[in-house]
């Protein structure tokens, strides 16, 4: 699923209006793997690259896509309870943008919408059709919730140019970063339109004991449950030993 989405995004890039052959951007990450270990409290990755001449650069980081159900609370008998919900299809689990200038200055709205640059341009679609006005409210709320959770970046990051060809930026990932295969897209922008693009993969993965625990919990839930019970029982028995005399 994730993989197919990734390929689809690549396909969109390939089919996008063919840029002038000369225009080019190359970019890479300081690391292609974010390892979530026991001490993980968030990290950052450096994105760097070069363009073939003056122009602006925009980078978009997307996590693997999922269907997301968002609830709106309503007051029922004096208590705030989840009252109504909308499920959106293919919502990226992580989304961040960085640009060399404010987005509205360097990109035309149509180009931003075409390439999904900026959280408002994600084009969230509900799983089943609903009242457009209501769907739009829920979509805006979803972006707000994800921004407050830190997994949709609230403000675009800053891409810094060293001279007029080399650029770099730092992409921050919070402690609750979702795992999976990410895509980092780098766009070269001239005259308010995208003229070149490059996509780099990034993997966020649990490593070590945490990965093993999560893996067993989902693949062998019965074994995991039994082990969890046994370890707890052993720990309880061990704990009672020093106090046996009383």
């Amino acid at each position, binding site marked *: 699923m994730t993989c197919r989405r990734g390929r689809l995004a690549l396909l969109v890039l390939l089919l996008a209006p063919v840029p002038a052959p000369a225009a080019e951007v190359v970019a890479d990450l300081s690391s292609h793997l974010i390892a979530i270990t026991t001490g993980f409290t968030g990290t950052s990755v450096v994105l760097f690259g070069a363009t073939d001449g003056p122009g602006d650069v925009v980078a978009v980081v997307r996590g693997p896509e999922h269907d*997301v159900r*968002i609830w709106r609370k309503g007051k029922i008998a004096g208590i705030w309870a*989840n009252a109504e919900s909308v499920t959106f299809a293919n919502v990226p689990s992580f989304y961040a943008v960085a640009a060399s200038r404010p987005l509205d200055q360097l990109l035309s709205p149509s180009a931003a919408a075409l390439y999904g640059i900026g959280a408002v341009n994600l084009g969230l679609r509900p799983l089943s059709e609903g009242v457009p006005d209501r769907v739009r409210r829920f979509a805006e709320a979803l972006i707000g*919730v994800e921004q407050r959770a830190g997994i949709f970046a609230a403000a675009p990051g800053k891409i810094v140019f060293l001279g007029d060809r080399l650029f770099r930026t730092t992409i921050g990932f919070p402690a609750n970063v979702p795992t999976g295969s990410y895509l980092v897209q780098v766009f070269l922008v001239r005259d308010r339109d995208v003229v070149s693009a490059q996509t780099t993969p990034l993997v966020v993965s649990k490593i070590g004991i945490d990965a093993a625990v999560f893996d067993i919990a989902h693949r062998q839930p019965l074994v995991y449950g039994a082990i969890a*019970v046994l*370890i*707890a029982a052993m*720990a309880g*028995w061990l704990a*009672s030993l020093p106090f046996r005399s009383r």
Partner: protein
Amino acid sequence: MDIYLPIAEISQDVFVLLALGAGVGFLSGVFGVGGGFLLTPLLILIGVPAPVAVASSANQLVGASVSGVLAHWRRGHVDFKMGFTLLLGGIAGSIVGVWLFTLFARLGQIELVISLCYVVLLGVLGFMMGVESVRTILRQRRPGTARRRLHRHTWMHGLPLKTRFRKSQLYISALLPVGLGFAVGLLSAVMGIGGGFIMVPAMIYTLGMPTAMVPGTSLLQIIFVAANVTILQAFTNHTVDAVLAMLLLVGGVLGAQFGTRFGTRLRGEQLRFLLALLVLAVAAKLTQDLTLHPADLYVIPPDSRL
């Protein structure tokens, strides 16, 4: 020092978790109850998703009750026949409870159900304990009040399947412990608690068991009910965070031992009054969260990213 909890998928300070386990363990040692009814809401308050808090507390409970049963068993204060009769109901109750839990999770209402259960139970429990302890304190100032009758015959003694529980010196219908076990098993699955604070008074006042036998026997059946809940939650909802449970357990067993020693130095009714205040405070905080206008009207529950 932060540690990443693999199932809860959040980073939490190790010392906060150890201190939480120790604090709850200390209270459970002082007051002689399991402490799960405080642990789960406290975990929710520090940001652990409610379903993970419930399932991991059940896991922690297995260890805590093994430790407790061994201590009581060495003094010969465990009625195994009664424990296993309670367990029959307990297993059935926990299966129904986990099924209900999964159902509410699918409806997007599990966080609400858990909070509501806690508000009602903690509110009632805190109120009753508060009233009882104040009454006891007042009665000591005015000595000479009438004693209650030791044994009263009610409809419960007319039930079929009468069974003899030698160790508890009882001859009662087996349906009573089975029904009690069922109710507590249900609560254990939905709320992540052992249910000691319901089980203990019910065993003393409803079944009429000797007080000395009650904590050990109650804990014995809690081991198996909690183990059953842990395995069922792990299997159906993938919400048991073993790392979280172990950290709580380490803090909990140490805290409980100190709590037990500390508890013997204090007066019972004053302790119960303090516990009542604490329980009511937690209930009030949870009620406030349910009734105040939420800061964010829209929510994405942890299990809705499909």
